[in-house]
Structure formats: structure tokens, C-alpha cells
């Protein structure tokens, strides 16, 4: 019998036949942490270990509360910078470089066949590059710093076969929300998901990253897209060996999806699987629009937003905030004139980073207010105020709605 992508990746890594269900001990290629590094340092000190086992293994990227808005955040950042120097760590990215998942990918730390673990649930994002990557806890990162390794259970796999062309103004985010609505917030609990089929093959790396990123919102451990020439070009390498999961592997489920039937979607408060077509909630008044995050903060996301906003103004009743996912993305927006278009339309352009996604600073909502967000979570209180509510949508739906001030199907902008 054939093997799933994760079975192949772990079999190669451990040089023996690995099947789902096995518990393995691995040395991850890289281990990611962000502003939470400050707390991980405390756990590491508690262990009584002096030196990090492998100073090449940690990748530390400050993104969650950047720049610091309180003295507590500033002190955390300072503590992290001092630790990086003390431990002679090779891979540190200070404020301004961008969101950890975007920066880690751009810097080429996640490659096909690699294993990346991180103290952040959206570490699943690098599945888009043919890697195995998943989120772990802070204490586990401290344990990896000390020992270089961690145990993992090799997950069973659900395979999605996605075919058909998207309708105009339907984006990978809509597909992700559609899938999560279909299988539920726990529909892929503990599982690896594989995104296959012509629709995924035709997608850019940025689009695949949206899918892999959102896979944790269906409970998945890993969100895999196979590597191809687009992966090679993104990583700036000549040749790539795809993982090629076997169609006859022991998949727990194979789910076929026709992308051409999916309309623009939203996730309504307060769970990501509470989805409906945008048409069902059209006309709901919004107070804020939030562009960005590790889900939808890449160049193509702002490009489609700019295409819709060009020559138009955002509604006076709406505050529109945009956070490019990285310095590299920001520079591209400037070069392509997208930045100018967004500024002219009334968008408030912010610095690369997580922004208001996690409610720790910036863009907090007032009681009773509603935000339309391109992020990945709409949980109660997620953006800092439990008395507000969040709808999740694609950048196209967010742009169309920014103009009208109410939730709007972007397909209407073409009519």
C-alpha cells in the first residue's frame, strides 16, 4: 500500500517505514517562536540547561505586539534580544520584518521534506511548501532548545481533491471557509490534510499558504500541498523533489470539492465553522475592516483589494486598517503602486506584523462594533473586546464592503 505525504516525510527522515499512528522522536529542522520567546526563556532557565543544544535550530521573529505599545511588551522584546546575543542564536528577526509565518517562509527555512515546529498554532502554514509543520506549546519549545528533539504522533490523513475554476472574485480564503463549514471546526482534529487536484496545482504559493494556514481551523495538525516548480521558484532553488503522496495510501477520507460552485463566503461570529455565503449576510453594517495576517496579508491579497478600491473611497463610517505580512510584501506593494491606491482610497496603512488579529494592541473594537476581517479567527473577544463581533472573509469581500460600509458580495462590483 502507498503512503500519505506525512508518512513519506517521516519515513525519509527516520530511514524506516513509518505509518500513521506511530509515535516518533524527531529533531525538527527549525523551531519557531515569536513574542512568546520571553516566556519560553523562563521555561528554559527553569530546566537548568546553560546552552541551547543547537543554536542553528531556533528561529525567533518578533511580530505579535510590534512595535511595543506598553512597557511590558518592550521589556519582553528586550529580554529576547539579550537572550539571542547570550546564546549566539543565528536566526533572529526584530520588529518590522513581518509576521513570523511569512518571514520564516520567505527566508527559506521551510522547504519540501523538512520538519518545522513552532509555538504558534498557524505553524501549519509551511505545509504549502511541502513541509511537515505544526504548532506546539511553549514548554515544548524550551524542551527542544534543551534537547534538540521532541516526540510526535504521525497523523492519519484526509485528502481533498479540488477541481474546477474559481468564479470571479472567489479566492482561496472562500475555499478554506467553505471546507471548514463543511467538515466543522473539529472535522480534521489530529489529522493531516492534503490539498490536491488541479485547482491547488494552479494556485500560487501565497494562495496555498492561505489554505495550509486555515487548516488548523478545522483542527488539523498539518496542511499539505505538494511541492512543484512554483515552490522551487518561491524558494529560489533550481530543483525540487516533490513528495508525491500515493493515491492508494490509507486515507481516512477522500473528499472531492468542485471549486467552481463556491460563492464568496463569510464566517459569522463566534466560530470559524459558522459559515454562509456572503449573499446571506449582505447589508450588515460594519465599523472596521482589517486587511492582513498570516492568512491574507500577502501581495496577491492586497492586489485584489486595490483592484476593487482603485479610484473609489472607503465609506466614511468605516475604519479600514491594512497590515502587510512582511517587509518584503510591503516593498512589493510600494513598487507596484498598490500602496498608493490603498492610501488614496482611505485605507490606514500600518506596519508589517500581526496587528489587531489577537487583540493585544492596535485596532481594538468598541462595544457593539463589528469588524470584517481577512484573519483566521472570529472567536468572542479575539480582537480584544468580548462585546464586539468579527466576520471573516476574503480580501475581495473585505474591499467591496469597505466601500459600501456594509457586508457586500464583491461579485456585485463587476456588475
Amino acid at each position, binding site marked *: 500500500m502507498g503512503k500519505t505525504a506525512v508518512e513519506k516525510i517521516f519515513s525519509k527522515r527516520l530511514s524506516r517505514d513509518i505509518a500513521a499512528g506511530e509515535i516518533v522522536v524527531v529533531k525538527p529542522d527549525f523551531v519557531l517562536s515569536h513574542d512568546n520567546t520571553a516566556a519560553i526563556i523562563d521555561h528554559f532557565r527553569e530546566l537548568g540547561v546553560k546552552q541551547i543544544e543547537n543554536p542553528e535550530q531556533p528561529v525567533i521573529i518578533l511580530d505579535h505586539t510590534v512595535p511595543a505599545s506598553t512597557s511590558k*511588551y518592550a521589556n519582553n522584546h528586550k529580554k529576547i534580544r539579550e537572550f539571542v546575543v547570550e546564546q549566539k542564536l543565528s536566526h533572529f528577526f526584530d520588529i518590522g520584518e513581518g509576521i513570523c509565518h511569512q518571514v520564516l517562509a520567505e527566508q527559506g527555512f521551510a522547504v519540501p521534506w523538512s520538519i518545522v515546529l513552532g509555538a504558534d*498554532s498557524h505553524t501549519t502554514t509551511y505545509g504549502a511548501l511541502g513541509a511537515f509543520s505544526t504548532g506546539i506549546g*511553549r514548554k*515544548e519549545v524550551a524542551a527542544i532548545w534543551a534537547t534538540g528533539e521532541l516526540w510526535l504522533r504521525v497523523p492519519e490523513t484526509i485528502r481533498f481533491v479540488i477541481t474546477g475554476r474559481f468564479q470571479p472574485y472567489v479566492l482561496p480564503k472562500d475555499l478554506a471557509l467553505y471546507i471548514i463549514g463543511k467538515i466543522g471546526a*473539529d472535522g480534521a482534529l489530529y489529522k493531516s490534510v492534503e490539498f490536491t487536484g488541479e485547482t491547488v496545482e494552479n494556485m500560487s504559493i501565497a494562495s496555498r499558504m492561505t489554505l495550509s494556514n486555515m487548516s488548523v481551523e478545522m483542527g488539523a495538525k498539518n496542511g499539505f500541498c505538494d511541492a512543484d516548480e512554483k515552490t522551487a521558484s518561491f524558494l529560489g532553488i533550481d530543483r525540487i523533489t516533490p513528495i508525491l503522496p500515493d493515491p492508494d495510501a490509507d486515507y481516512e477520507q477522500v473528499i472531492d470539492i468542485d471549486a467552481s460552485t463556491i460563492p464568496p463566503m463569510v464566517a459569522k461570529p463566534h466560530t470559524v465553522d459558522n459559515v454562509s455565503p456572503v449573499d446571506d449576510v449582505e447589508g450588515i453594517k460594519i465599523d472596521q475592516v482589517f486587511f492582513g495576517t498570516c492568512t491574507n496579508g500577502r501581495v496577491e491579497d492586497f492586489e485584489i483589494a486595490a483592484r476593487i478600491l482603485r479610484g473609489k473611497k472607503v465609506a466614511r463610517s468605516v475604519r479600514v486598517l491594512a497590515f502587510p505580512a512582511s517587509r518584503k510584501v510591503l516593498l512589493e506593494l510600494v513598487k507596484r503602486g498598490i500602496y498608493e491606491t490603498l492610501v488614496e482610497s482611505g485605507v490606514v496603512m500600518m506596519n508589517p506584523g500581526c496587528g489587531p488579529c*489577537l487583540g493585544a494592541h492596535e485596532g481594538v473594537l468598541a462595544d457593539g462594533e463589528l469588524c470584517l476581517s481577512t484573519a483566521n479567527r472570529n472567536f468572542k*473577544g*479575539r480582537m480584544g473586546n468580548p462585546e464586539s463581533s468579527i466576520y471573516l472573509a476574503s480580501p475581495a469581500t473585505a474591499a467591496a464592503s469597505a466601500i459600501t460600509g456594509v457586508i457586500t458580495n464583491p461579485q456585485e462590483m463587476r456588475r
Partner: protein
Amino acid sequence: MRIKGRVWKYGDNVNTDVIFPGKYTYSIFDEGEMAKHALEDLDPSFSKDVKAGDIIVAGKNFGCGSSREQAAICLKAAGVSAVVAKSFARIFFRNAINAGLWAITNDKVQDMVEKWDTVEIDLEKGEIIVCDRRLRFQPYPEQIKKIIEAGGLIPYIKSSTKRRRQ
């Protein structure tokens, strides 16, 4: 080992944002302080009325969302002895073990109990005793039990490296 406690009952998909809001994740480091905000956005009465030994009983996908470890730590620090749920989100499950909090999977308990009922758990036998009925769960392997009984991953690694040195 057996634990016995009062029930706090919740539904499906209790996420880590309502267990421990993101706005505190980079400003609160003291575990006692974390306990004061436990379940703040789901049940404001919890942190006021919780007693040592209480047991949370919930539906499916408990602890979904962010990987924040404080979600497990704040419950443990508040005195919760175990969480029994129909299923757990995978990072929360790991975090619970690593924080020394029992996370027990059983798909029937939530439908059988009400708030303030008393539930008893036999961790060796893998039994949950609810109103004289005994429900089974898969007992943890020894290795995992040792981590929880040591008080979590950090004390466990410390004690095991000490043993190796001796």
C-alpha cells in the same frame, strides 16, 4: 490515583481565546494572576467560584484555536483537577499534559452531568464514575502519567535528567 470534584459544564468548541484572552498573553506571566482570568470571556463566574479540585466537563474540540499554553496553565492554577471532554484540540491536549493537567476524553459524560454534580475519576483503571455509572476511558501510558504527576514537562525533564546524572 483518584480525583473527585464538582462539575463545571460547558459546550462544544471552547476556544483558547475565551479560556485565556489574547490581550493578556504577553502581559501576564504569574500563574496566580492567570487563574484570575480563566474562562473570562465564556463564564465570568468561573474564576470567582472555582474551588480546588473542580472538574470541567465539556463537549467536542475543547481548547481549539491559539497554541497559547496559558489556557491550560490558568485552569490548573485556578485549581481545576481535570478536564473531561468529548474531544480535545491537539495543541491544548499537549499543553495540558505539559502543564500537569489531566485531559480525559470521553464522549458520554457531558450528556450525563449538570453543573455542580460530583464526578470521580480513577486514573489507573481509566474509569469515570458519574451517578453510580462507570464510564471507560483509555488510561494514559506510563510515560505521560509520569509527566503529569511530576507537575508537567519542565519539572519532569528536570527530574529525569537529575536521575540520569545520579
